[in-house]
């Protein structure tokens, strides 16, 4: 699966989608779910929580391992995807649809500084060696 060109990415394997109202939707990339394998548990941050960029704010657990999810930018959590409570495997089957949380960024310009799909792919490729 290629990384959608309309998203931004972090080197810690989150994807970020900017919605029309400026809200950010955050999930983990196809590469991240592939590394982790079958997802069995997601712990998302609660709405209202203030996040600093690169702060650990969610946990995804596969059969194999637990992995932290990091805030892509500073801001405030506005929603968590409660559907993942019952269907964590959606992250495996649809990584760019199965969002984990939404947030309002403190500074919209921070989002522009994140990686684009090509730069993120370079990060993935460099990890493979």
């Amino acid at each position: 699966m290629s990384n959608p060109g309309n998203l931004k990415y972090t080197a810690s394997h989150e994807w970020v989608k900017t919605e029309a109202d400026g809200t950010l939707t955050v999930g983990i990339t196809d590469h991240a779910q592939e590394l982790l394998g079958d997802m069995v548990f997601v712990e998302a941050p609660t709405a209202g929580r203030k996040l600093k960029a690169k702060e650990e704010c969610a946990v995804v657990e596969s059969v194999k391992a637990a992995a932290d999810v990091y805030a892509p930018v500073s801001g405030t959590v506005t929603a968590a995807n409660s559907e993942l409570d019952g269907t964590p495997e959606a992250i495996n089957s649809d990584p760019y649809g199965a969002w984990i949380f939404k947030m309002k960024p403190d500074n919209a310009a921070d989002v522009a500084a994140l990686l684009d799909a090509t730069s993120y792919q370079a990060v993935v490729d460099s990890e493979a060696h």
Partner: protein
Amino acid sequence: MPSLKQTPLNAAHRAMGAKMVDFGGWDMPVNYGSQIEEHHQVRNDCGMFDVSHMRVVDVKGDGVRAFLRHLLANNVDKLTLSGKALYSTMLLENGGVIDDLIVYFMRENWFRIVVNAGTADKDIAWMKKQAAQHAPKLTIVDHPELAMIAVQGPNARTKVWEALPGSKELSEHLIPFSAVEMGSMFIARTGYTGEDGFEIMLPAKAAPFFWATLAEHGVKPIGLGARDTLRLEAGMNLYGHDMNESVGPLESGLAWTVDLKSPRDFIGKASLLAHPPTRKLVGLLLLDRGVLRDHQHVHSAHGEGEITSGSFSPTLEKSIALARVPNGVQIGDSVQVAVRDKMLAARVVKYPFARNGKGLV
């Protein structure tokens, strides 16, 4: 990075789309897609595992039985029929576990031992050192040139019989935990999944063809990821996790494998008798949402313990664990497990958690 060791099936795994990982220095398949699907495949039908990284060690010569009587914590005198197998630990003088293993009695001058991959070299060194002192005429020869394929699941034996002409006649009457030779192959009704099936040793050069033949008969490949969740559900110990050189068998749920009743002496016996266990291995079932993992701390009314193997049980769809806890902890007790910044509720349960296709908890 030193190059990883490969089994004779390495190319076959890659061709089947395996995700390969460094498993204790071996380049091994962790899954071929979904670990959970592979797990269910074995519980409900059958699957095959490459366990060629495990090592076969033959101990031969007059007096093998007497030597093993001294070397192993379980008593090889339980083995009277050719082909019968016994699970045992091999202990240090201080009672710590060097390794767990299966020993097969073949003839009075030949016992075959299968040991773990990561411990094989130290195991063989230890055996040779003990033999030099107690039985210098024995030969101890390991067989890294033998591959091993485990076929496990309710339909495993039937599939092997279909794939391997002549094997049915030889192996259909094998009772569990026994083996038979078939030419250069060795067919054992053993496993590490809690399901019926075979573990088959064969020359490395024959392994890719046999693997491909099993695949043609519909046997799916299963990675080491599912192997771990299957063995955990089956309540089987994993060396280096549930026991090691600093923890003895009596505190690792393995008292049933230690013969302290017979008058025979064995390495580690004096220490086990001098140090009665204060801890024990129990099963845990997580009641809250989350996943139990190795090394998480367990808080009980009787003191602290630690998870030795924790994961998600695909059969129960809950998280389960083995944990070493103070002796006072009883089945049915409620305990708390520290998971990151939270304390999660778990219940102490009997294990195995699942076997023969069914959840037991």
